[in-house]
């Protein structure tokens, strides 16, 4: 437990000194706030662009608050995921690559504590960044577009947060398996996108897949209902995270250094 605290403190300090604690939450906040603002001013923007054919009027149904929130979540699924993977990809491989791990692992350290500290700091960074961004999106949506059902928004947020946690866990697992940063980014991002795309194509077969989480979150907001397998997807995702963690612990132990 003491070692976990030491490792965790070090991870937090590192994320602070490398400004991850600044730029990741900021990017998430920007992504969150952008959608309602852009939506609100879209008609003006189009008007001022001014090259509409004469006599043509665009009649845009002003979107509801919930719709804007759902669009925000889709934003997170592309740019947000990319930022997340990029900021986490070298968390485990980096120390092995540089060689610091040789000094750390020749000391009587627990591999579980080491990996758990990485996991906890990853979850903290994701949670803070996402909550900040999502809260920002909610605030601006309520101000500029219209009210959002609180229960739906919270539920959607939680499901989406779990999806981000899952993607973060996946990235750390890949980071414990591979060394080249580009490879880690490619595999983690590819796997996460593939999971959510595949759910989009054949939802009936993948109702319990973690890839269902982003879509499920959006469904809460659109209140279409009827989607089954929420509990299943939840359980499977948490199970996957636990398995990823266990896998990373044994990989860290097995590949102590690159020699």
């Amino acid at each position, binding site marked *: 437990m*003491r*070692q976990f605290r*030491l490792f965790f403190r*070090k991870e937090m*300090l*590192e994320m602070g*000194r*490398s400004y991850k604690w600044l730029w990741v939450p900021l990017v998430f906040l920007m992504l969150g706030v952008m959608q309602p603002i852009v939506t609100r001013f879209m008609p003006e923007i189009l008007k001022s662009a001014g090259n509409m054919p004469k006599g043509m009027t665009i009649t845009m149904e002003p979107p509801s608050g919930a719709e804007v929130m759902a669009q925000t979540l889709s934003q997170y699924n592309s740019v947000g995921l990319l930022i997340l993977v990029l900021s986490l990809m070298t968390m485990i491989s980096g120390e092995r690559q*540089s*060689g*610091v791990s*040789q*000094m*750390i*692992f*020749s*000391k*009587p*350290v627990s591999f579980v504590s080491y990996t758990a500290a990485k996991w906890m700091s990853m979850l903290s960074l994701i949670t803070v960044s996402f909550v900040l961004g999502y809260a920002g999106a909610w605030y601006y949506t309520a101000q500029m577009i219209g009210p959002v059902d609180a229960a739906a928004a919270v539920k959607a947020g939680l499901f989406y947060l779990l999806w981000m946690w899952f993607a973060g866990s996946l990235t750390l697992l890949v980071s414990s398996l591979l060394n080249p940063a580009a490879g880690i980014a490619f595999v983690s991002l590819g796997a996460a996108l593939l999971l959510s795309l595949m759910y989009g194509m054949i939802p009936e077969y993948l109702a319990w897949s973690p890839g269902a989480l982003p879509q499920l979150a959006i469904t809460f907001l659109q209140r279409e209902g009827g989607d089954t397998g929420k509990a299943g997807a939840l359980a499977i995702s948490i199970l996957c995270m636990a398995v990823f963690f266990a896998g990373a612990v044994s990989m860290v132990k097995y590949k*102590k*250094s690159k*020699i």
Partner: protein
Amino acid sequence: MTPLLQVDGLTKRFKERTVVKGISFSVAEGSCAALLGPNGAGKTTTISMLAGLLQPTEGSIQLRVGGKPVLDRRPYIGYLPQMPVFYPWMSGKEFLNYAGELAGLTTREAALKTGEWLEAVGLGADGQRKIGGYSGGMKQRLGLAQALIHRPKLLILDEPVSALDPAGRKDVLSLLQRIRRETTVLFSTHVLHDAEEICDEILMIKAGEIALQGNLEHIRREYSEPVIRMEVGGEKASQDWLASVGNKAFVLQAEIAGTRAELTVADVEQASHELMEDAVAHHVIFRKFESGQSTLEDLFMKVVQA
């Protein structure tokens, strides 16, 4: 003396290449052993296995503390890698403190020891600076401090002085000299001189096998042979004569190159008499004639080149 470290049949295979080939040795408590070998001999691989970073393919490594073998060696070992790497964003002081706490010191002890060791390795004034701005020598010394902060029983160092300039090398060697009074030391080097300076045991390895091992004094006595080194003038008569001395009965081994020769002989006095007489008869001009004992350096070169 009881061995602190006992290694039996240690082997490491990478794919189909065997890099360490079943080496066995022991290190007695309180001694200083040097793992000596040319580049690529397998020193780093051996040391990584001792430090627990690499899983041996075969063989056993046993560390005995209080007479009993321990299951986990790590609490009793201090290790310095060949090229120590730190977190560049930490200060030297922060890193030492972190290393001390990870090794099991309490917060208070760690803080205390950090101060002591920074001073001891001469980084007292640079403790607050970021490691990213340290020079190679400073990193080496910080690495030494982190290996020693928890008072290990066995200090394992991989080429601790190879990357240092002569002054830095001297600093580190004298530090090791001081440490070895309290701690058993095993370090690798490809420079015989470093080993001779502080060690009492040597293990020469070559291509993954032990070529020679034992007490330094013992080896020095055992393997030192009488040698005659000479250099003659450049004219034909002298050179022809030199080329032929290898065939004399009293010469056990001869290395002749141009105008120089080094002869290993059975008896120096007899050999020098006969050589002199012969040389006079052949009108040879000497530039240098020296008789003495072969050094450990000669032995090392012989082992390495054999």
